């Protein structure tokens, strides 16, 4: 038997303590975040709040047009991103054998993911609003959000396609199916969950984005249902921003909390649905 160094025992105790303590901090931060949003938000929220338009620059009244604007802008963005993301992923998996092209595609998707949200706003402002002369337009907001969603949806679809066992392709090819049929019968159904979860996760993120749309797609007050593609809407995040800047006014702050809870709930619905689908649709426990 050796003599054991007791310092190590002490270090072990410190280590165990600090891991537990860190978990405790994380848990309390989490409880505080969710708790404050929930408690403050529930106080402000009601059916009336959700379904009446804002009055007095948001201080009173509800958030009906903001809710509408947010949903409109992200759902249209989802429709825009879907075909491009699917096409890109399919190209990467079914048609491209060139490693260099694959690398370039990967890097540009990562780069797209890395661009800060405010930069997207500036890009939209320069390219669409001024260069193409659309003016402040909700549809431009949708396009910009679609670009932001592109990497997540593409990568998720790509990964799902990658996870399809090769044997399926080989068996389908051995039956003499043409490539188009293999894609339709094997690739599409087997990677469907990847498209849907990627879309839902990116929707959850997109609906909370403020910086990309605040210069190009939104107006704060006096906005109703847009009559054309080039009119502004009002959205939940930009509404919260305006109200947060008047945070000394308790009335404004209360409405900001109400809008926040609505926004977080929407995001949670999207990502909760994604988690649920990932478990339900993922074949044979792939992640």
């Amino acid at each position, binding site marked *: 038997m050796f003599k054991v160094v007791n310092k190590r025992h002490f270090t072990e105790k410190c*280590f*165990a303590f600090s891991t537990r303590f860190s978990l405790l901090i994380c848990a309390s931060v989490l409880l505080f975040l969710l708790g404050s949003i929930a408690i403050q938000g529930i106080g402000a929220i009601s059916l009336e709040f959700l379904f009446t338009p804002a009055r007095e620059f948001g201080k009173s009244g509800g958030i009906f047009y903001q809710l509408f604007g947010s949903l409109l802008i992200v759902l249209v963005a989802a429709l825009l991103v879907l*075909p491009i993301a699917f096409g890109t992923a399919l190209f990467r998996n079914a048609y491209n054998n060139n490693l260099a092209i694959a690398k370039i*595609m990967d890097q540009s998707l990562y780069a*797209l993911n890395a661009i800060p949200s*405010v930069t997207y706003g500036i*890009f939209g402002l320069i390219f669409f609003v001024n260069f193409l002369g659309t003016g402040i337009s909700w549809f431009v907001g949708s396009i910009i959000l679609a*670009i932001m969603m592109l990497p997540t949806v593409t990568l998720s679809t790509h990964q799902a396609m990658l996870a399809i066992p090769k044997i399926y392709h080989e068996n389908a090819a051995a039956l003499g199916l043409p490539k188009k049929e293999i894609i339709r019968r094997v690739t599409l159904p087997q990677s469907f969950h990847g498209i849907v979860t990627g879309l839902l996760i990116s929707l959850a993120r997109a609906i909370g984005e403020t910086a990309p749309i605040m210069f190009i797609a939104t107006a704060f007050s006096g906005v109703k249902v847009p009559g054309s593609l080039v009119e502004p809407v009002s959205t939940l995040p930009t509404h919260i921003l305006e109200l947060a800047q008047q945070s000394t006014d308790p009335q404004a702050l209360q409405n900001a909390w109400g809008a926040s809870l609505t926004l*977080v709930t929407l995001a949670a619905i999207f990502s909760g649905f994604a988690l649920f689908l990932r478990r339900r649709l993922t074949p044979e426990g792939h992640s």
Partner: protein
Amino acid sequence: MSTLAAMPPKSAPQHGDALKAYCQISAILSVLIVALILSTLILQSGPVLSLKNSGMFSTHWNPDAGQYGMMPMVFGSVFVMIIAAIVAFPIGLMTAIYISETRSSKLRRFIKSVLELLTGIPSIVYGLIGVAYLNIWVAEAFDLQSGRIILTAGILLGIMILPTFLTLTEDAISTVPARFRENAKALGLYRHEIFKLTILPQAKSGIAGAGLLAIGRALGETMAVMLVIGSLDRLPSPLFNPLSSGQTITSKLGREVGESAFGSAHFSALVFMSLILVSITIVLTIISQYFLSRKNTYV
């Protein structure tokens, strides 16, 4: 079934080609978008770059006088990022160790799902929490007039990047096969030694990737920072005083892009700052992807 052989194939060849063309167009489009964004930023940075005496490296920002000193913003971004890293990394790492060591896979799954939901809280909502609580608490704690200071922004950012860093770090630690842990345990090592001697050498590149990605997020974060940092275009004095108000590149952009005239030198200076920011975050992300993808080299 002898007729089968005689039947012509159902799909005409040009259909397959149409599908291929559609895929190619999408792929080209998604690569071109990045190029389009970057070239737009570069082109619009032109006016301020061609301007003599723009004083970009000075500390004075005054568009009316033609002074576009970006140093306060660049410094603010870096300073806030460092504070965020100090807040998030130790706590994130220790919590990740706890989660990866826990016996209960149920607890583990639960924590991971909650973290995923946490990353879904929009940054504007973090901003609201910062405005409503954090800046008041910080003001009280340090006996300040206003809590809208660099420290508040740093703490808030730290909280925001914590879930990202935590999940990725936990992934990196969990991919180290359990047998290493068991062998080290059988030698009578303590948990901290097991981590230091066997887990860390194999997980460090994944952890580094997680850290870089989190830092990249922190640099690009706009709304929350903009609401709590106080928007003061000056270097803090003394330089590393976290209790003074400040400005980051992103908060500057969020505040002023809407107010500057398109095409002016002022607007161009803002675009150029954005270009600096994008370059840094893209480089950080690409390096972090490199680290994250080679985390299993030892196994």
